[in-house]
């Protein structure tokens, strides 16, 4: 586990320039399905990102093999699209603590920030002591120590990335969060659906469920300890809750017809679900403990893809009551639905942010399906993606990035973009498809 203490943290609250550039990254999957990792390769960068030098950390004592902590931190920062790293070979010196940092050198190299650190082996733990410096202001922004077991130095690296990201942007980092997604391989006739959970950089992937029948709609519990999802493993769709640490599973909805689109309430006690047991697709609130149901929509059209809004009182959903799928909002469980989207004939699968400013969704324009967002105050709609078969948007818990599924050369891949539209990185599986991404909340 990780311990941390912090010294002299200054939150600069810097506003970042809009990320108006593209980072494309190609990825591979390891050959063993049980450890199928999505590896990232950066193929394109741009100029407007903040230049930051992550100096390789000094090491004392035996270090575990594998990726260096400082290079994981550098990759984390880079993949947001908000930072441009300085290659180590261009550095004029390799400081590991504050009194070794000469601002003039880093200014000559055009750097805004410098991160230095030292790693020390202490028994079966690795301790990191790290400091971040603002080159222009010539001041230390933050300094802290953190440690992890020798076996989980990736967690330690992501933790450092979170802290550095927050120190520079004023927004908590989301590098320690997880991705859930479903891979599909059709090789050899039988399809293999695998529900997997990995780090947000695609590493440390683990298969949690494998089936020949479809697995859909993974949704994280608010404490990031459980997943709800739809599995067809019995031959028909049912909703399951899967506790990740124990692997225990409970079937919570198995009615006649559809059992789909689970979404957790903020207290983790209930799910919004789509059932068609009463004739056609309607939205219900399912109390997990008692299994009691409250019906929240009543219309002959399709009502599905529910998700609570930031207040926890109302919810967004997709309905085709106007003739085609559109996003609707109910301010309370019993309020009249209000239509949110008007920009085209197909808008579906809403995902609101945490502060009630935007709702993100799948948006058809001409023949293409993009991810778009609507500003809930001004009702202005912005198309965020240039890819054309986009599905399943899921917002990072800090609201800065968004992951979605799209097509690349016939296969389904995951792509992460800045929430205001800059493309960042993609995570295709080399075998078959990756789809249905769900970005976890920050564990608590």
């Amino acid at each position, binding site marked *: 586990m990780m311990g941390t203490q912090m010294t002299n943290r200054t939150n600069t609250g810097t506003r970042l320039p809009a990320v108006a550039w593209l980072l494309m990254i190609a990825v591979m999957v390891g050959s063993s399905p049980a450890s199928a990792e999505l590896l990232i390769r950066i193929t394109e960068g741009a100029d407007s990102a903040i230049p930051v030098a992550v100096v390789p950390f000094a090491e004392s004592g035996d270090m575990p093999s594998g990726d260096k902590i400082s290079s994981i931190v550098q990759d984390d920062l880079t993949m947001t699209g908000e930072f441009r790293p300085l290659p180590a070979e261009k550095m004029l010196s390799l400081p590991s603590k504050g009194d070794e940092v000469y601002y003039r050198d880093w200014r000559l190299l055009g750097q805004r920030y410098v991160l230095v650190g030292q790693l020390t082996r202490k028994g079966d733990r690795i301790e990191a002591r790290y400091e971040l410096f603002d080159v222009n202001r010539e001041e230390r922004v933050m300094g802290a120590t953190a440690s992890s077991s020798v076996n989980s130095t990736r967690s330690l690296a992501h933790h450092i990335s979170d802290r550095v990201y927050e120190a520079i942007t004023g927004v908590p980092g989301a590098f320690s969060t997880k991705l859930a997604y479903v891979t599909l391989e059709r090789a050899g006739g039988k399809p293999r659906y695998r529900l997997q959970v990995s780090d947000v950089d695609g590493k440390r992937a683990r298969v949690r469920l494998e089936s020949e029948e*479809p697995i*859909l*709609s993974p949704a994280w519990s608010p404490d990031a300890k459980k997943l709800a999802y739809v599995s*067809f493993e019995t*031959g*028909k*769709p049912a909703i399951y809750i899967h506790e990740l640490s124990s692997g225990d599973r409970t079937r919570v909805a198995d009615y006649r*017809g*559809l059992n*789909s*689109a689970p979404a957790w309430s903020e207290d983790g006690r209930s799910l919004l679900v*789509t059932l*068609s047991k009463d004739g*056609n*697709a309607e939205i219900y609130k399912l109390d997990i403990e008692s299994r009691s149901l409250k019906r929240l929509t009543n219309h002959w059209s*399709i009502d*599905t*893809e529910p998700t609570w809004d930031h207040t926890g009182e109302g919810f967004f959903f*997709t309905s*085709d009551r106007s003739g*085609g*799928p559109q996003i609707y909002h109910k301010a309370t469980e019993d309020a009249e639905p209000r239509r949110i989207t008007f920009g085209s004939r*197909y808008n*579906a*699968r809403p995902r609101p942010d945490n502060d009630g400013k935007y709702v993100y969704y*799948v948006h*058809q324009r001409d023949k293409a*399906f993009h991810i778009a967002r609507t500003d809930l105050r001004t009702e202005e709609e912005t198309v965020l993606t240039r890819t054309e*078969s986009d*599905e*399943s948007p899921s917002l990072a818990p800090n609201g800065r990035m968004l992951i979605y599924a799209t*097509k690349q050369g*016939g296969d389904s891949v995951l792509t992460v973009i800045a929430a205001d539209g800059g493309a960042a990185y993609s995570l295709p599986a080399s075998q078959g498809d990756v*789809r*249905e991404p769900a970005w976890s909340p920050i564990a608590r």
Partner: protein
Amino acid sequence: MKLATQQKALALVFSLGLVAGCSSTGGTAEDGSDDSDVSAVDQEGGSTVYGGDDEDGVSSADMTEEERREAEARAERAEEEAMREITTFYFDFDTAEIKSEAREVLVAHARYLQANPDQDVRIEGHADERGTKEYNLALGERRANAVERFLVVNGASRSQTETISYGEEKPAVDGSDESAWAQNRRVELVFQ
């Protein structure tokens, strides 16, 4: 192989359609005695049956009324049997409207189910890959429900039918073009 059979069945349906005016009595098909397709097709191929009324009894003069009816019923059974080879029905994007060309075939399936109460059918609804997976699950169900209602209205019993939607999860063909999408927006009848 399967495709060839379906095409043959389709061709047969169309050729029957052209001459069906006097032969479609609207009656309920009996449980076919399963006499071979060949003789049935031959029967249809000859003008004996269909020529009867048009030519005001001239060519059917040597058939009794009973024989005529029997032949007609046989032809009709053959027609329906051929139509029942078709078990996949296609839909337009984001609709669950049964196309006119599917109706006659579905009526044949409904009559067959009515005549065979022990026969169950699983009605599987599908969508193409475009749009969202969860909406497509609901859309696939809507398509399956539309076909189920049509079968029931035309004689099948609810106890014989079961619906399931796979949404966009089980495409009939791979690919991301209009031709693939058109083949994937479908309902399949699976007799069990």
